[in-house]
């Protein structure tokens, strides 16, 4: 999977690259609109992350260009402005998602995965972690072919963990993922805790394995064999990269 990051802040794009490299993506960087334009015209990417405020122009024009030459490429807009107009314009131009800075890297990763899942595998992709099998589009969880009843929030939570395997997910990022703007609420961490507790119990009852681990009070860690995306019709586990 090839990802292009068009972002003028090298420090930020390098951090994104470092995070995404761990996921096994091939990444390239462009610091200006012109560089981005050049790369987009020369190569084909699976996903492009575009910053709106670039030194030589508005990133939205790049969105239009990418949609013109490579309509299959997924686009996520990164913006420092939490502006509804930018969001609406960007999505109208064909961008798939919109993230406001500062974002959690785990959230970005989760969004990229969901985007690629939709674009590359037409949603027909399952995540398998040990005995757990998750069908994101159908919103179903199976444990050894036996369906597991989970609530909507528990499913979102599980998917968030599974798309960020082996990472520390901070309580902040989980709360924001689940409740968006409402995550400012001081009680949300307790809710995160109780959701994880429930999910942990449900999965433990069926599998006898502890997948969630608490990390020094800062967040949670999803352990277990690395989540492997696979196409349901393939019996052999495919390498996701």
């Amino acid at each position: 999977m090839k990802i292009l990051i068009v972002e003028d802040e090298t420090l930020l794009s390098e951090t994104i690259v470092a995070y995404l490299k761990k996921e096994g993506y091939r990444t390239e960087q462009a610091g200006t609109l012109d560089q981005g334009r050049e790369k987009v015209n020369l190569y084909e990417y699976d996903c492009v992350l575009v910053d709106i405020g670039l030194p030589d122009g508005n990133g939205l024009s790049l969105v239009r260009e990418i949609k013109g030459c490579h309509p299959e490429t997924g686009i996520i807009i990164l913006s420092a402005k939490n502006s509804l107009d930018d969001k609406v314009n960007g999505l109208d131009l064909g961008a798939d998602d919109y993230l406001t800075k500062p974002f959690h890297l785990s959230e970005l990763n989760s969004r990229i995965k969901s985007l690629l899942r939709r674009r590359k595998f037409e949603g027909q992709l399952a995540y398998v972690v040990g005995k757990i099998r998750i069908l994101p589009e159908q919103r179903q969880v199976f444990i050894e072919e036996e369906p597991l009843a989970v609530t909507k929030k528990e499913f979102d939570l599980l998917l968030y963990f599974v798309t960020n395997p082996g990472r520390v997910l901070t309580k902040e990022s989980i709360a924001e993922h689940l409740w968006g703007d409402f995550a400012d609420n001081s009680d949300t961490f307790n809710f995160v805790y109780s959701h994880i507790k429930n999910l942990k119990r449900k999965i433990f009852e069926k599998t006898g394995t502890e997948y969630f681990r608490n990390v020094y009070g800062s967040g949670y860690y999803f352990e277990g064999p690395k989540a492997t995306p696979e196409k349901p019709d393939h019996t052999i586990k495919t390498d996701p990269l």
Partner: protein
Amino acid sequence: MLVTFVVFVIAGVFFYLALGHVIDYNIREMLDSRRASVVLYLQNSDKDKIAAVSQDRTIFIQKISKSAGYTQISDTLAFDPDEKGMIPYRKMVFSAVAGGESYEVIILQSLLESEDLQAVIISFMTLLFLLIFVALFFLNNWLSNKAWKPFIQSSSKLKSWKLSELHLVRFEKTGVTEFDQLNRMLEEMMAKMQADWVNLREFTDNASHELQTPLAIMKSKLELLLNDDSITGVPHNQLYDLFQTVVRLSKLNEALLLLSRIENRQFAVDAEMDLCNLIQSRLSYLGELFAMKEIEVTSALEAPFIVQIHPMLADILVNNLLSNAMNHNFVGGSIELKSGNQEIVISNSGIRQPLDPQKIFRRFVKGSNSMNSNGLGLAIVAEICQANHIGLIYNYLNDCHCFTLRKTSDSLEAI
């Protein structure tokens, strides 16, 4: 027009008085001339042949014993055979001496003709005044329309002008120096205002960008460090504290920027939103949060509360109010939502003492018990309400903190 009318009335009264005076004077003249002819007649006639009554029954002469030398003028009514009724007369009674005899002469002068004359003149004048008045009215309207046309054009252009829409207003040449001067000054002023506004907005946008990006870098670097397996224990916790602080800082920055953007009216009102509907949908989304805190939510939001507001602001408004009601509540508390009579009331249980309504909507005023709130939530609510002409009232009722959103006359007008 009122002035014209007053002038006309005064002129009419004066005219009436002057006319009466002239007529009086005229009648007096006539009486005097007839008196002169009567005196002449008395002097030239034989004593015996003096007729006591003139043929037209307007002059009566009678002998009196002595002459006192008097003249009296008075008004009287007398029967007139032609008119077959009593008609007004002016009566002149005077004494005259002729041929050693004293006579008292009464001369009657009919006032009928002069009254008729007066009536004709008055009615004619009234008609004339009315015609002039009507003509003046239309002339005045036409003239003022014509003369003020450039002004009306300018003012209607000004009325439709919005700072945030950023189009320059061009006034047409009016041909009137004063108006052209005014329009030129207005153009300059508006251009300056728009330039300032654009500068301010750019500054806000830049500030947002320039601050959010370093914060994004800090946050993502910290996230990478938190994921570093070699950092464990105390250093990890310290990194996490740092991470939390950065998150708080960026939220604070976001909130302050939002406030300044609302203050600068950078959210154009472009949609009608039913806040009740919005609250309902937020409630179903957040239901489990309330359930987990064992907060009992009772909502009676049947009557819609429709306001003109930017959808993002409506969202933030509802979010902050609900968040506030939950945040400052206790486990097992209650939230009550009511709508009706052009208002929404959100009341929640909480600390059992009223808050200072002067203070709670100010920035950085925090409830003592919540560490995570930045003290800007209600300030943003107040700012949004002010910008969108929604009344916001806090009161403490039955151990509950009530926040009331009410439509003001402005917001009613806007719809």
